[in-house]
């Protein structure tokens, strides 16, 4: 009698097990809610919409892709619990992190103990993804420490006929401060004069006191590499104080929309993703998918998520069925992804380089004469070496 129950239970469990194994399962821990959700939720929503679109067309290698998304609210403890659940219960092929850097450590630990890949999509690329890369960590996020400042300051130098007196603005978080310190040092080697550096705590009710000090130093250029709120509020506060110089800053997800809101010809953004203004065929595809999925974000916010979707698609396509974390890891160690023009070239990962072998930069600003966002510099390629 007892064995009959066991057989019945096993038979009942079969469809569930089959369902679980009949898809490529990827686990995501992301800041879907909480104070920083505006930066991360669009990435995950876009990635999910693209994968749903892919599934509707037959999936990858004839199998659907299942994305299990757990919200960590940018809290390390929640990210740790999410990673454990994704590995132990969902048996995912790889982990994805789309959250603040404070959530990295517990996810890295879980990925290491399970021996599976950890892919950062839309989250800051950790140093471990740059060559020589950690065997388990990968990243497709647009911005790259040091490289961004090299490209931004090269642009400033190329644009300036007069001697450059440059000011710097960062947010009081390690990654932003580290990058601005690097940029300050780099500016000296490029013959510029760094005149002031302000580091604002997050969040700040009024940026004017910081902007006052920057304005008093009288820079003709400003460079900021920080979360968007810090970058643009510092700029706006300086303008209200009467500063008339030029300001270059990182092009976050919302940069295109923000250039249109601010409408200031002296605000430049540098980034590695194409803008909707480029009107590529892939943008039409993005618009259609976003419309079908009824996404609550502007289409210009979705590029990073689509890049992640393309990366996952290619990695899983190169993971033969039946998939295992080891097969997925092997596929990611030698990957070349066609980004359909969303960046200056393909995204390429090698065994030693899990960031990308080449990074491409463009610069935009608001063109007051044309009343539109205009490209100021086309793709500039920088090789990513050790």
């Amino acid at each position: 009698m007892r064995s009959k129950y066991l057989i019945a239970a096993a038979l009942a469990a079969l469809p569930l097990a089959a369902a679980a194994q009949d898809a490529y399962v990827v686990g995501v821990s992301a800041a879907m809610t909480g104070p920083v959700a505006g930066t991360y939720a669009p990435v995950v929503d876009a990635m999910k919409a693209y994968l749903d679109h892919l599934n509707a067309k037959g999936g990858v290698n004839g199998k659907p892709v299942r994305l299990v998304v757990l919200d960590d609210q940018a809290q390390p403890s929640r990210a740790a619990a999410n990673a454990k659940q994704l590995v132990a219960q969902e048996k995912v092929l790889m982990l994805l992190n789309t959250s603040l850097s404070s959530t990295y450590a517990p996810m890295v630990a879980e990925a290491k103990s399970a021996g599976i890949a950890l892919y950062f999509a839309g989250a800051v690329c950790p140093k471990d993804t740059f060559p020589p890369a950690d065997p388990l960590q990968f990243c497709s996020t647009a911005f790259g420490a040091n490289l961004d400042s090299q490209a931004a300051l090269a642009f400033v130098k190329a644009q300036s006929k007069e001697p450059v007196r440059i000011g710097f603005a960062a947010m009081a978080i390690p990654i932003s401060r580290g990058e601005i310190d690097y940029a300050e040092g780099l500016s000296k080697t490029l013959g510029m004069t760094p005149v002031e550096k302000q580091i604002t705590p997050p969040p700040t009710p009024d940026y004017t006191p910081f902007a006052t000090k920057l304005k008093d130093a009288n820079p003709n250029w400003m460079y900021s590499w920080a979360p968007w709120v810090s970058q643009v509020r510092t700029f706006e506060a300086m303008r209200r104080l009467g500063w008339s110089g030029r300001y270059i800053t990182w092009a976050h997800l919302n940069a295109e929309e923000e250039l249109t809101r601010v409408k200031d010809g002296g605000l430049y953004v540098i980034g590695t993703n194409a803008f909707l203004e480029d009107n590529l065929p892939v943008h039409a595809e993005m618009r259609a998918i976003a419309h079908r999925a009824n996404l609550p974000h502007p289409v210009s916010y979705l590029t990073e998520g689509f890049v992640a979707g393309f990366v996952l698609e290619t990695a899983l396509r190169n993971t033969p069925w039946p998939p295992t974390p080891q097969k997925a890891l092997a596929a990611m160690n030698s990957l070349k992804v066609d980004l359909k023009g969303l960046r200056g070239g393909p995204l390429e990962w090698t065994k030693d380089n899990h960031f990308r072998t080449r990074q491409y930069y463009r610069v935009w600003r608001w063109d007051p004469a044309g009343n539109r966002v205009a490209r100021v510099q086309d793709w500039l390629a920088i090789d990513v070496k050790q």
Partner: protein
Amino acid sequence: MQLAVNIAVLASIYALICCGYVLIYRVSRVLSLAHGELMMLGAYGLYATASLFSGHPLLAVAAAGGLALAVGAAVYAALMWRMTGESVLAAVLATIALGILLRGLMVLVFGTQTQYPLRDLGWTNASFDVGGGARISAVGAALVLGTALVYGSLFAFLRGTRWGLRMRAAGQNPLLAAQRGVRLHGIYALAWALATFTGGMAGMLLASDAGLEGTLVTIGLKAFPAALVGGLDSLLGALVGSLIVAGAEVLLIHYVDPLLSDVVPFVVLLAMLVLRPWGLFGSREELDRV
């Protein structure tokens, strides 16, 4: 001169936020830890009314103010009223739960994207010269004037009107006030409504200056040391505490290190707790009891 303007604007932000903490605490001895969320809800109220009354910015602002008053009264009627007679700790925990609930609801209803209510109202945040080479933004000026108006009105209300007298009586001795015929629930609901209105006003002005996003909640908490420095049950104390904290913050940013701006409110607070734990203008007797 610019430093003085910066101090005035930052002190106004803190004072406007602190006002809500003080109003609720002095009347009901409850520390509202949902004040940051209610402040943000006020800002979302403006965002919603700006869309609803498109082309009529003054109507939108008035509607948002009315909405904030109604929300405050509703919070009391739906939640805090049931805390009457319970321990203060239970009431404080209820405000924490309310804050979590509001945060979740705001994400669900309004999403995670940064909003710009000022743009939706059709206004811009221009700046103008105030003499001595100093400039102030339109929103900064509105903050200073709005805070002066709010505090002036509250002082007049508390000292010169019957309802104000009742509110002070309920704060000093609720039992005696009730025995003299003061309807405590009405007074408490009014305190919550006024606190949410002033907090909402702070939220609306901050969102008009810097955009509306999730970090607004944290700014609500950042103003809390100013309320404690001045004395948690004193409106005058909130004003003076805000001025001290803002002054220290702006001067340190300018003359020492910008990174200290995050720490200085708490350094001032610690110093005050050591020297005068009930704050500059707070009531010693009441805080001893807490």
